[in-house]
């Protein structure tokens, strides 16, 4: 290994040892493991340790769940919302006529039928209204701009 520092060689040795010792406990029978008990910790203390860790783990898991819920809520709040407003055909026809009438005063090329809004079927009014809305001819609330 080059360099002035042996990169984590000792740590790797300790890791290997830790793994081997832990695996040995894993492979030990129940009788062996109870005979193994670390001298400085009784079974009652170990059980208390496990119970404490379990309770803390459950608490942390609940917090994580709340955190995720809060994050989703924040994301939903930040997302742009579009409220669908139902506008009647008559209202659409009225608004279109007003917009056309206003425009007519500026541009005389608009046809007479369109100016008067007569003879235009309802489904065409729907399409015209949507097109005009997309073009921003109405104000933010659907009012004429």
């Amino acid at each position: 290994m080059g360099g002035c520092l042996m990169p984590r060689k000792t740590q790797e040795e300790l890791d290997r040892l830790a793994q081997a010792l832990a695996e040995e406990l894993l492979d030990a029978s129940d009788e062996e493991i109870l005979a193994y008990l670390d001298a400085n910790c009784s079974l009652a203390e170990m059980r208390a340790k496990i119970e404490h860790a379990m309770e803390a783990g459950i608490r942390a898991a609940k917090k994580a769940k709340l955190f995720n819920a809060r994050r989703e809520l924040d994301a939903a709040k930040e997302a742009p919302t579009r409220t669908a407003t139902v506008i009647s055909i008559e209202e659409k026809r009225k608004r279109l006529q007003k917009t056309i009438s206003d425009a007519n005063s500026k541009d005389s090329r608009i046809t007479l039928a369109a100016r008067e809004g007569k003879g235009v079927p309802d489904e065409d009014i729907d399409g015209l209204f949507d097109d005009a809305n997309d073009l921003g001819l109405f104000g933010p609330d659907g009012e004429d701009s």
Partner: protein
Amino acid sequence: MDAAASSVEYYLPEEVLERLNAISDADVARLVGISRRLARSGLSSDDLLQETFKRVLETEKPRRWPRDLDLGPFFFGVMHSIVSTYCKGLATKAQVRERELHLAEVSLSRDFSFEAELADEAEADHIRATMVALFDGDSEAKDVLEGIMDGWTGQELCELCDVSKEQLATIKRRVNRRIGKAFPDGWVSNA
């Protein structure tokens, strides 16, 4: 579609809780013992156990417990994974965010500065020396200890120390018990 199949392969959350609430004395000792062997500076056995339970018991994306796996091997796998992640300094975005918001009770962050690395290595050297010194006057155990650290297999250790498989098992138990007593919370130099 997979609900029935997955409930067969893995314990359901309520079954996990049931099993943990009825944990045997041997498994209590096993889990604590394993957590103590795998703990290290900055990641105590208590932290490790707590993080392990959190991962197993969390409701969203928990570590699922396969039905064909005993409690010991399953928890060993979870703890080992946490320690590896900690050593590599990896953390998921969610963990980082949780820490930022002080939601996580256990901090799994690790300092990777050059100074911290040097300090870690110095501490590891000290721990290694202390550990080897525990077996002064017990050359058999010292050989086994150093052989394990060097990565020798069981067969190689038997040949190296000129002992049988059974004798090796006895020596390893001696090593394990003595280290467990001297380092009750993993590889920390003030042990």
